[in-house]
C-alpha cells in the first residue's frame, strides 16, 4: 500500500514525530511504500540540523535523515510554515527539501492513505 505521512508537531515537545517515525519504519519494513513525509506546522522544526540533543537521547533530525537515505524517501518541509519558523535551505538536514503545500495535496491524491501525526 502507498502511505503518505503528515507531521504537525515539532521535535521533543511532542511525541508525534517519534510516533510517525516508528510508523513509517514499521510500514517500510513490511514492504509498504511511503510516498512522502510532509512536515507542516511546527512539524517543520524536525528538519533542522541545528538541533543538539544530549548524547543519551535520540537525534530526531538524524534519525529521519538516516531513514530517508536507507529507503530513498521523499521529505517535504512546507515552505510557508518553514518561513514563519526560521527554517530554510541553510538549516535543513540531509534528505529534507523545502516545498509548497501543494505537495501535501499531491500525496493526498496519490497515496492510498495519509496518516496524520499531531494536532
Amino acid at each position, binding site marked *: 500500500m502507498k502511505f503518505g505521512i503528515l507531521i504537525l508537531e515539532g521535535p521533543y515537545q511532542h*511525541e*508525534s514525530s517519534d510516533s510517525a517515525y516508528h510508523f513509517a519504519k*514499521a510500514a517500510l*519494513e513490511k514492504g*509498504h511504500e511511503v510516498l512522502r513525509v510532509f512536515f507542516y506546522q511546527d512539524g517543520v522544526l524536525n528538519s533542522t540540523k541545528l538541533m543538539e540533543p544530549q548524547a543519551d537521547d535520540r537525534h530526531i533530525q538524524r534519525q529521519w535523515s538516516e531513514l530517508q537515505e536507507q529507503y530513498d524517501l521523499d521529505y517535504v518541509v512546507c515552505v510557508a510554515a518553514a518561513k514563519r519558523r526560521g527554517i530554510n535551505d541553510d538549516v535543513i538536514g540531509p534528505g529534507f527539501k523545502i516545498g509548497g503545500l501543494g505537495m501535501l495535496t499531491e500525496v493526498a491524491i496519490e497515496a492510498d*492513505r495519509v496518516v496524520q501525526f499531531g494536532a
Partner: protein
Amino acid sequence: MLHLVNKSPYDSTGLESASKYAGKSSGILLFEDGVYAAMSGTAYEDRIKEIMGDHDVYALKEDLDARGIADRVVDGVKQITYPDFVDLVEQNKVASWS
C-alpha cells in the same frame, strides 16, 4: 474507519469526540498519551468500557510500556504494536483526533 487518539482523556476531548462521531463498526486506537484512557482502576474505566460496547479499542503497547501501565490495561482492550498499527491503517481509512 480507524480513529487515532493521542491525548489523555483528562486533558482533551479527542477521545470523546472520536467516539461520538465514529460509526459503530469503526475502531479506536489509543497511542501516545491516549493510552491512559485504557488504564484500569481509574475514573475513566467505566467510560472506556462503555466506548468498547460500540467500538474495538486498541492501545499501542510501545506507549503503554513507556508509561509503565501495560499490566493495568482494562480487559478487552487489544494491545497492539507498531506493525499491527500499520496493518490496521492498511485495512481502514484513518482520522486523527487530539
